[in-house]
């Protein structure tokens, strides 16, 4: 199976449309300039990569829709222009979602939850899926600046697995105050504009963009193939929340993994498209990593961030399209912005664009949390199937080796105890209780969500009793670190945009908790955070299922959400109606093994419920074909979609008359409630019984049957906890 790029769409500071890029890149144009999007105080004039107003004017697009969504729509419509049908799935990298709009609303003191409906990072991908009529899975990857590339890697694995034939993958982020002031507080912005790899570089230029690739799976090269995604590699530095490993060890592993995945040796790479942000540390670490992989005479390389700025979650997808252009137009773009290459890097970028026959490109993306992704993009006509790995991987089940949860009732045992005595576990646990298994020095910079996530990770691993520490982390969170986001913006607004905390900025990034977990365990494998509202746990599970490696090394699957007094009622419409504010999460320590026996967790079904009348029958036939048998159903119906969810459940139970629990009545309303439910299901399976107050009519759990976890509402998801 090969994965072809059959459509591209992009809107960036260079302009709108893929067709304008060859000229822009060949000339080495710089699109970095003053910020116009929101007002700034006079001492605050740092250059950015902003998309010009002319390019963003699209007829019929109302301003109700936040900028990121509109940019994503523009790029997506270009990418699918010649597609023969809607994509089977959407996988999008997004880090700030509707943040620009949210900032304006918060500044004005508006507290109507309806106005915040597009805040969540996951709303961008859902918006595209609904527009394009995508009925399959919709995933949002939030791994900071590597989001776009990581999203393409996950899409690649989804296509290789045969779960989808056509996937829209990419990234989108608009400029906003959070990232502009956040990077400024880290002193990571070059006042002269980004000059990657220059001797006197001072930092990056924050930018914005949306870039989309329409990917299609096939054995033969389709007529509309523009290029091929030959492979992708993921890794984590497990070193520091915001600084790269000084020797670029994580970057090196991501590149090596990508090359191995593509079945190609370093000598097969004709051009390296750098992450190359322009910060002193990033460029040095990346140069060292390149020397480690390619030696002192690597193929030609350049960074495009001096030309366009750093579009964060979009950058990996922007650069994948740029790589494709180099292949198709036979040239290598210049490292714009660099006048005097830094001799300390030992290797020199291309300072001027040159014509060259490019067959295969390696494109790097690295992010906060030490989160790395690299992609190998090729010319399908010039890299035959013998050099392409292309093998369909076997995927043994994900065995549950350990688990734990946090709920209003307490941690794991306390929660199970409460449920088994017939009580609910709603509420919020005091902060000190959450992290009582962690040393104070470790958690001093952590507010609620990262403490919860790390505590869950540690207890799930301890519960496994495994001697090996986890290597990869898959985390879901509906809303990310709300306390940090709130505190950052509050201080910013209260001080007239003069002061904001660098600690809060770094910790506000949605993948910061998973980064802490990686540092704690030294987990240098894949580290993916998924942010899809109420379906984040299911998205993380699906990503783990697609990318986790087979073998002895355990990995963690976690989902958690915090309740924040001010922000939760604005963002999460389900929690408004709940009388008891609740939060928590669940974690599994898993191993992928074919030989081993034991309880496993399996993502059975994930579809968009919008305009999808066949969804229940589709779920039903999936379950019939899966060969799994279930003794009970645990249904998650977010309060905001109560009516719709109850109808869906009713329709399902007509075909599958099984005893069921409406579990949010026990867990309370929060996005990751499904992770707590999954842990409860595993515990029921382990103990062989379900408390009668939880599910009536099922005195004993038959040993050969599983529990089916249903997610209902905007999407329908099914997860099997199987014997």
């Amino acid at each position, binding site marked *: 199976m090969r994965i072809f790029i059959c459509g591209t769409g992009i809107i960036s500071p260079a302009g709108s449309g893929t067709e304008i890029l060859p000229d822009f890149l060949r000339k080495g144009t710089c699109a970095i300039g003053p910020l116009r999007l929101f007002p700034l105080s006079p001492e605050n004039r740092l250059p950015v990569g902003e998309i010009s107003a002319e390019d963003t004017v699209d007829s019929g697009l109302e301003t109700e829709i936040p900028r990121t969504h509109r940019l994503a729509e523009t790029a997506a419509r270009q990418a699918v222009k010649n597609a023969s049908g809607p994509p089977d799935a959407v996988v999008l990298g997004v880090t700030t979602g509707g943040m620009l709009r949210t900032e304006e609303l918060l500044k004005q003191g508006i507290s109507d939850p309806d106005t915040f409906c597009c805040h969540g990072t996951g709303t961008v991908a859902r918006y595209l899926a609904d527009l394009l009529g995508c009925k399959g899975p919709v995933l949002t990857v939030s791994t900071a600046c590597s989001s776009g590339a990581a999203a393409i890697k996950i899409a690649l694995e989804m296509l290789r697995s045969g779960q989808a034939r056509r996937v829209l993958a990419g990234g989108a982020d608009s400029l906003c105050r959070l990232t502009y002031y956040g990077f400024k507080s880290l002193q990571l912005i070059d006042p002269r504009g980004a000059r990657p790899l220059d001797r006197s570089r001072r930092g990056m230029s924050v930018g914005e963009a949306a870039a989309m690739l329409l990917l299609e799976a096939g054995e033969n090269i389709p007529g509309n193939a523009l290029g091929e995604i030959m492979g992708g590699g993921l890794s984590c530095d497990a070193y520091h929340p915001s600084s790269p490993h000084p020797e670029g060890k994580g970057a090196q592993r991501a590149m090596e993994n990508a090359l191995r995945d593509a079945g190609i040796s370093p000598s097969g790479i004709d051009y390296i498209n750098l992450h190359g942000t322009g910060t002193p540390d990033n460029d040095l670490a990346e140069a060292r990593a390149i020397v480690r992989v390619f030696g002192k005479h690597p193929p030609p390389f350049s960074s495009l961030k001096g030309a366009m700025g750093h579009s964060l979650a979009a950058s990996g997808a922007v650069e994948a399209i740029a790589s494709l252009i180099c292949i198709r137009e036979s040239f290598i773009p210049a490292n714009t912005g660099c006048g005097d290459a830094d001799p300390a890097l030992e290797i020199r970028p291309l300072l001027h664009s040159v014509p060259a026959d490019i067959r295969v490109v390696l494109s790097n993306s690295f992010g906060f949390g030490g989160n790395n992704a690299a992609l190998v993009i090729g010319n399908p006509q010039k890299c035959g199937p013998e050099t392409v790995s292309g093998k369909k991987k076997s995927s043994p089940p994900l065995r549950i080796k350990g688990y734990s949860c946090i709920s209003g009732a307490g941690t794991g045992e306390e929660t199970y105890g409460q449920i088994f005595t017939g009580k609910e576990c709603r509420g919020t646990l005091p902060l000190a209780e959450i992290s009582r298994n962690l040393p104070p020095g470790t958690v001093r910079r952590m507010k609620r969500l990262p403490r919860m996530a790390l505590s869950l990770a540690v207890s799930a691993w301890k519960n496994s009793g495994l001697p090996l520490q986890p290597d990869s982390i898959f985390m879901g969170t509906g809303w990310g670190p709300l306390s940090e986001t709130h505190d950052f913006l509050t201080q910013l607004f209260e001080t007239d945009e003069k002061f904001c905390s*660098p600690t809060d900025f770094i910790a506000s990034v949605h993948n910061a908790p998973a980064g802490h977990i990686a540092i704690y365990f030294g987990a240098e494998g894949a580290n993916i955070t998924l942010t899809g509202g109420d379906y984040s746990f299911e998205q993380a599970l699906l990503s783990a299922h697609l990318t986790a490696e087979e073998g002895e090394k355990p990995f963690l699957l976690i989902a958690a959400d915090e309740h924040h007094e001010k922000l939760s009622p604005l963002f999460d419409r389900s929690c408004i109606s709940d009388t008891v504010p609740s939060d928590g999460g669940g974690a599994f320590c898993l191993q992928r093994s074919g030989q081993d026996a034991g309880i496993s967790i399996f993502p059975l079904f994930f579809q968009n419920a919008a305009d999808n009348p066949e969804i229940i029958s589709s779920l039903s036939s999936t379950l019939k074909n899966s060969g799994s048998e279930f003794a009970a159903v645990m249904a998650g119906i977010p309060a905001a979609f109560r009516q719709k969810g109850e109808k869906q459940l009713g329709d399902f139970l007509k075909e599958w008359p099984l005893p069921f629990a409406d579990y949010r009545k026990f867990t309370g309303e929060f996005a990751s409630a499904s992770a707590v439910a999954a842990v409860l299901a595993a515990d029921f399976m382990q103990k062989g019984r379900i408390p009668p107050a939880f599910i009536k009519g099922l005195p004993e759990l038959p040993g050969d049957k599983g529990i089916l976890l249903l997610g209902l509402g905007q999407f329908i998801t099914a997860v099997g906890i199987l014997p």
Partner: protein
Amino acid sequence: MDKLLSELKVKIVKTLNLTDIHPEEIDADARLVGGRMGLDSIDVLELVMMMEKDYAVKIDNKEIGAKVFASLRSMAEYITDHSPVPAG
């Protein structure tokens, strides 16, 4: 200077949430970053903001930063020399 040093010790513990350290325990001449307290570059930036907010002292380049944040005493000296706000 002693008064400013004691004041800074309290501020550091509070700003960086060093819940397991008492302000009096901090040695004014000990290495701040990478030392016993476990501080790193993010903490330094947090202290940069604290110094600007509370003492109107701006530090926006790495070379000066490395000197200022060598120890608590060097921080206090820099404030004494550069702050328009009366110290202590």
